[in-house]
Every structure is written in structure tokens, then in C-alpha cells.
């Protein structure tokens, strides 16, 4: 796809418009909106972690509306079957009275999929999403079908209720581009939320772009230049999450069981490119790397027993790594 200078210059404006429109329906959570948009424009999936009622479903719905994308929601439960997610072949009778198999697409066949409380489904059902998330294809009955583009999975999980849940395995976590922590809104934000949602005077968000527009923005985002030194910094940062690495600082050696996969590095670079453009810059800066490092690596960094016992979080460890890592 040929990229026009004009389109590059408009990138920041468009994203700003998206943020503005989404912000009409979502009070607060500006960073979450921004980071979700980064993930969408980088072509990644997002795992949202937060207590229920923080507006996750509303966020996804709004994004779907603003981006003019098809939206579907899957509420994951222990009895949810893989076919309930990806779809199945059903027997249908045609006009001539002959029976034949016809594929009934599941909810994954949508531009934006909200996998609500993904950790409540069995690993078998969770893994049904793997192919969709990674390959953007679904294989049912030996037939592989492409998912609509742009495709984006936004999964949520509740950090409190762990009983009866199936924590996502590392391999599946690694397939999420970002893991975002949705925080409880401030008092002021809560006032606004209450005022917005209880008066029936909700503002309507405007559509800013469409699927093709998103694909074009993705193509632009992939071209953002990054200096060798900046890329080196990002890769050293990823290496520093590995306790056996020579780049690993003391905190990694002490608290980390194992570090990020190469997907983490890919996620950082891709996200940093989008973030740079969103900042109105045509190159990636160190601060872009630092900004995206937390959502890109926090679910790829696994603490050891000592780290967990001392109450350290991946974000703490990442902060120390970043502080010690020279540019």
C-alpha cells in the first residue's frame, strides 16, 4: 500500500478524533482508551484486567461504533464450548429437500470481539481463540476461514474472583499484544459517569473512520522509522527481563522467573511506532519505548516465588529495569 504524506500528517488528527469521540462515552480511562487504540492500530489484541463495572464492555462497544466496526461479545463461562466461540457446521435442508452441512460462524467472526471474563472458560475453549487471535483465521471441519479485517480481540478478566477460574496459560497470554489494568475511576470521574449514565442525556459518539481507514492507519504505523539506537534500547529492555541475560539487572535476577518472549519486543516496537505518530512525531523516541513497555511486557514477565511472596508486581520490576537501563 502506497502511503501518502498527507495521510501520515492526518494520522495524529484522526487518532485524536477517535480518542475524543470515545471519550464522550467513556469517562476517565484516557490512558486505557489510548492504549487500546494503540493496540488496535498496531494490529494486536488486548487483555483488560479490572473489576466488573468499570466500563469494559461499554468501551468495546463505543470503539466499535466510533471505528464503524462490527462488534460481538462472548461471555466466557465454564460450560462454554469452542464451537460456541468459533462456530460450527450444522445440517441444513435446501429447497430440494437435500441435507447438507453449512458453517454457522461463531461470535469470533466480527471485527471486534469482546471475550468477557476469558479466564472463566475452560482451557479448551480459551485455546479456541488462539488461532483467531494470532492468525486471524478459524479452522472448523478442516476448512480454514479468514476473519474479517480489521480484527481485534479484547478480553477481560477479573483479578479478584479466582475461584472456579482457569488462569490463562503463558502461551495464550503471550498472544495478547497489551495487558491493560483498568483502574477504578476517581471521585470526579465517578460523578461524571453517574451524571452521564443516569440522566438519559448521553452524548452520541460520532463515527470517525471505518475498517478500511483502520487498515490504512495500520499500514502507516508500520512505516514509522526507528533509529538503531532506539530499537537497540527496546531490545535490551526485553533482554533485561530475562534473569539469565547479561543485561539483566539485579531486580530481574532476584524476582523474575522468566522474561518476555520475542513477541514482547515486537509488541514494543510496533506500539512505539503508533504512539510516536499519535504524539505527532515521525520517529520513535526512547520515551515511546518506555511508555509502551508496561502494557507490552507486564503479562510476559513471570515473577518467581520470591517476587510474589514479597508482593512485587511485574510493573514494579519493569519500572526498576527501565530506571537502570541506559539509553
Amino acid at each position, binding site marked *: 500500500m502506497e502511503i501518502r*504524506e498527507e495521510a501520515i500528517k492526518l494520522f495524529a488528527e484522526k487518532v485524536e478524533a477517535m480518542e475524543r469521540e470515545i471519550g464522550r462515552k467513556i469517562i476517565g480511562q484516557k490512558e486505557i482508551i489510548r492504549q487500546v487504540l494503540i493496540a488496535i492500530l498496531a494490529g494486536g489484541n488486548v487483555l483488560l484486567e479490572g473489576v466488573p463495572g468499570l466500563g469494559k464492555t461499554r468501551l468495546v462497544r463505543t470503539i466499535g461504533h466510533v471505528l464503524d466496526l462490527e462488534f460481538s461479545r462472548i461471555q466466557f463461562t465454564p460450560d462454554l464450548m469452542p464451537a460456541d466461540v468459533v462456530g460450527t457446521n450444522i445440517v441444513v435442508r435446501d429447497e430440494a429437500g437435500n441435507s447438507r452441512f453449512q458453517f454457522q460462524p461463531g461470535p469470533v467472526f466480527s471485527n471486534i470481539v469482546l471475550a468477557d471474563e476469558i479466564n472463566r472458560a475452560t482451557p479448551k475453549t480459551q485455546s479456541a481463540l488462539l488461532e483467531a487471535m494470532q492468525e486471524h483465521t478459524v479452522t472448523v471441519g478442516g476448512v480454514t476461514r479468514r476473519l474479517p479485517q480489521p480484527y481485534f480481540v479484547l478480553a477481560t478478566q477479573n483479578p479478584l474472583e479466582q475461584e472456579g477460574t482457569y488462569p490463562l496459560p503463558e502461551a495464550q497470554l503471550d498472544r495478547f499484544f497489551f495487558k491493560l489494568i483498568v483502574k477504578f475511576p476517581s471521585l470526579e470521574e465517578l460523578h461524571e459517569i453517574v451524571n452521564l449514565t443516569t440522566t438519559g442525556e448521553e452524548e452520541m459518539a460520532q463515527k470517525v473512520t471505518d475498517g478500511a481507514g483502520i487498515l490504512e492507519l495500520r499500514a502507516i504505523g508500520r512505516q514509522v522509522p526507528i533509529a538503531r539506537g532506539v530499537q537497540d534500547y527496546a531490545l535490551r529492555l526485553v533482554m533485561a527481563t530475562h534473569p539469565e541475560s547479561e543485561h539483566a539487572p539485579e531486580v530481574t535476577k532476584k524476582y523474575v522467573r522468566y522474561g518476555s518472549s520475542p513477541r514482547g519486543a515486537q509488541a514494543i516496537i510496533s506500539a512505539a511506532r503508533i504512539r510516536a505518530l499519535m504524539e505527532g*512525531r515521525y520517529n520513535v523516541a526512547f520515551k515511546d519505548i518506555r511508555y509502551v513497555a508496561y502494557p507490552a511486557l507486564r503479562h510476559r514477565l513471570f515473577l518467581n516465588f520470591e517476587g510474589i511472596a514479597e508482593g512485587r508486581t511485574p510493573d514494579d520490576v519493569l519500572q526498576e529495569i527501565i530506571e537502570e537501563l541506559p539509553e
Partner: protein
Amino acid sequence: MKSIIDVELNKALGPIRRRLILKSLVQMAALGFIAALFQALIWLIISFFVPIFNLELKMAAAGGIIFVLACILGFAMKPSISQIAREIDSKGLEERVITAVELAGRNDPFARLQRQDTIEELKSFNPRSIAINISKSMWITVGSLTFALIIGFLIPNPQEEFIHKQLQFEKTIEEQLQKLEEKAEKELAKSAELTEEERQQIQNLLRELAQELRESKDYREAIKEVTETEEKLMELFRRAQEAKLAQLGEGLSKYQVTQSLGEKLKKMDKQGIAEELRRLKELAQGDADKQLMEALQKALEEVAQQLPEGDLKSSMLEAANAISAGLVSNNIPSNVLDGLEGQLMQLAENAIDDPENIMYMLQNMKNQIAQTAGQDISKLASAGTGQQNQQNLQNQSGSQSQGSHGSSNGQSASGSSNQGSGMGNSSGVGNSSSPSGSGTGENSFSTDSQGIGGQGFGGQGAGIGSSHGEYEKIYDPKRLGDGGESSQVSGKAGEEGNSEQVDAGRGLGSFDGFVPYNEVFGEYKSQAMLNLDRMDIPQNMRELVKKYFSSLED
């Protein structure tokens, strides 16, 4: 080929680049200064354990070199474009410049937009925001090093005394060498007693000595070198005198009247020579055979003509003239051959003649070196090669008062210990501590020479007595003209005889026939000692003479 954007980018980077180069230069200069101070401190610390000459000069030179090198390095090691880009980016340009630099040559939309954006940012960038200053840590380092250096210089350095002595030693060596080179070589060139080859050999020896002395590291080495040169010179002089004796013997043996003396001289038969001379003296006394005397006069005169200039030649000519004069006046003086006898005996005894006081100069040099090193030359002599005459040295070093120019040579026919012939050089150089004047050099007499070949040199003394303001003057009959021609008085013993006197004039200087006794004391003493050995004098009388001279020294 560079695109317009690249050119613009370079242009925009220009002032910043210059600023950064200047910054780099200042930084390197500051580092160089710190390195210079550091090396100075290292020098200083080492100087407390190892003597370092010209410490401050070396510190300054090394420091200067380091500083200049650092500046050159700072100028040569200009920051690369990448370094410049990173430096600017760190001032808030968010990696725009380094990215733009890496995108150089690319012409895709992103590359163009990115570089345009960078150029716009650079235009609003003030190069002066890049501070050219020396960091606080550098100032602290400079302050600490300077403080340490000041403290180091204030602490007394135990090596300073040694260095001071060594410098004095080098200065002394240089001064002495200068004197030796200027004086000895010039005098040698004029010396008639030496052949050209001998002069050349002596000059070579002195040049070798000069080289060795300049390379010598301490006074012991220097004194050793001087002593070795003395030995070589002695050997040289001895060979020269032996040749002279052989030549003389050869000449005299051609004449009937002196044939026997010539043979004895060739054989170096001292006793035979003495007997022959006694025989000739007896012939000349009383009613001497005129024909025989004429033959003797002719032999002496003709042989003298064949000899090189010197005392021997003069003595022979004097004797020949005296005989000639005696024949005319029919009154040949009884002591007509005394001078010749002295010279021949001296030659026969193999006593070393010191042409132009070279040996004295070397002795003087050794004395000066030892004094500079704060050492007693007598102790050095006894601890060293064993070639120094101990008694001689002891006699001369008793006092702080030092002769200003003692220079007479004493030569002895034999040592009192019967270990061979000895030679004493009188000397005394230095300043008198007495307010009333300066002492003069002291003669010495070798009585116990040891060392190679049984030869020994008297060492240098420091002079006699500090309380003597000026020595009593005595008449010196041998030196009517100091520096002028030698005088000769011939005549007949007895009141009635005719006498003839040749006035040689005053010569150079203000010599009036009277000299301070200390100037001739050494010579007198050595002659007295010589005669004590030669003549048949009772032992108790010998002791009396010796005591007399000893009392004069006290």
C-alpha cells in the same frame, strides 16, 4: 548524491556541531589538565622514594605534553555525527536527529517528513543551550589534586639532600673538566718536553676521562675513573722517561769521556750512574785536565742538542756552559755537575715527572669531587683502590682552611717502607675560614706507597691550619724569576774566586725572591727526605730532620 533535505539538515546541524566540537575540546583540555596534575602527583610521590632530578621541570614538561596531547586529541577526535545527533536529541529533540541522520539518502514520504520535522526543530534549537563548562566533579578533582600537590611540596623530601649533592657533584665534574680541557690541553700543546705522540696520547686519555666522568653516576665512580687515568698517565710518563734515558745513554756512550756513564744509563744502573757522576765531578775538580774537560763539555753540549727541550737538556747545557766558562777562566766550579747529577738521578730513580702539572690537576679534581660529595678523600683512598698515599693524605687534611692554589710537586726517590718509588703531589684548594686570608697548598711526601707496580700518589690535602693568616716569607734561591728564565750563578768556591752572574730578569709576576714558606715547604721537605735516603746520615740525625719538618707542618 545528497538530497536537498540532507543538505538542509547538515546546514541546520552546523552551528550545533561546532558548539559540540568546542565542548569536546574543552572537556578534553580539562581532562588533560587533570591528567597533568595527576602525573605531577605521581612524580611527587615517587620523588619521596627515588631521587628525581629536576622534578619540577619534569613535572611541568610531562604535564605540558599531556595537556597538549589532550587538546590535540580533543581537536582530532571530533564527535561523530551520531554522537552529535544523540547529544542534541538529549536536549529534548526526542531522537529526531539521530533518526534523521540514519534516514539520510532515503526519499520515501516518512523519511522526508521526518527530516523536515527535524530541520524545523533544529531551527528553533539554540546551540548555546549546550553548555560549555567543566563539570563540578572535574573541579573537585582539580582542587583535590592541586591541594595534594601543594601538601606534597610542603612536606620535606628526604631525597632532596641527595639530589642537591648529586647536582653539586655534576657541577663540580663539569667545572673540573672544563678546567682540565681548557688548561691542560692548552698547556700540553705548548709543552716542549713531550713528543707529539705523547701529547696526543695524554690528550686522548684526558678526553676519555672527560667522557667517563660525564657518564659517571656518583663520586666513587668518578674518583675511580680519575685514578685509573692517573695510572695510565703514570705509565705513559714512565715509558717516556725510560725512552729519554735510553736516548741519553745512547748519546753519551758515543763519547769516550762519557761512554761509561752512557752505558750505565742504558742499563739504568743507579749505583753505576752515581759512581760515574762522582768520577766526572772529581775529574772536574782541582787541576782538571783541560782536554778532558773540553771533551766533557763537547759531549754534554752535543748530546744536549739531541734531547727535547726540558730540564735535562737545560741541565746539560748549563753544565757544558759552566765547564766552558771555567775553562776560559781556569776555574771550573766544584758544583758544575750538581744540576746534571740531580736530573740524571731523578731519571735513574724512575721518578715521574709531571709535565704541566697534569697529575696535580687530576689529584685536585679528585679532591674536589670528594669534597663535593662530603667525603674525606683519605678515607676514600683507604677504602678504595689502595693507591693513595695515606700518610700524605693525613698530613694534608687536618684543617678546614684550604689552600687557594697550592701546586708544588714533590717527588721522592723511594718510599720509606721500601715498597718502591713514591710520588707526592702537593695540593690544597679551597677557601680559608680564617678572616685573615687564605692558606696555600701543602706539599706531601709519599712514604708508603702501595698499589699497582709499587707506585703511589699522594692525595690532596685540604691545607694547613686555619689560623694562619699569612705565612712567613722565606727566600727561594732557585726561583729568581717566577715564570721567567732560570738564573745561573757560576763561580769558584772561596772568597778570592771570580764570579759571573747572569741576570735572568724578573720574569712575569711580582716575585721578588721571597715566597711564603708553605709554598716551598713541600718541595724542601721532599728534597730533604730524598737526600736522607741518598746520603749516609746517621739514623738519629735523620729522625731530627724528619721531626723538624713535622714540627713545621704543625
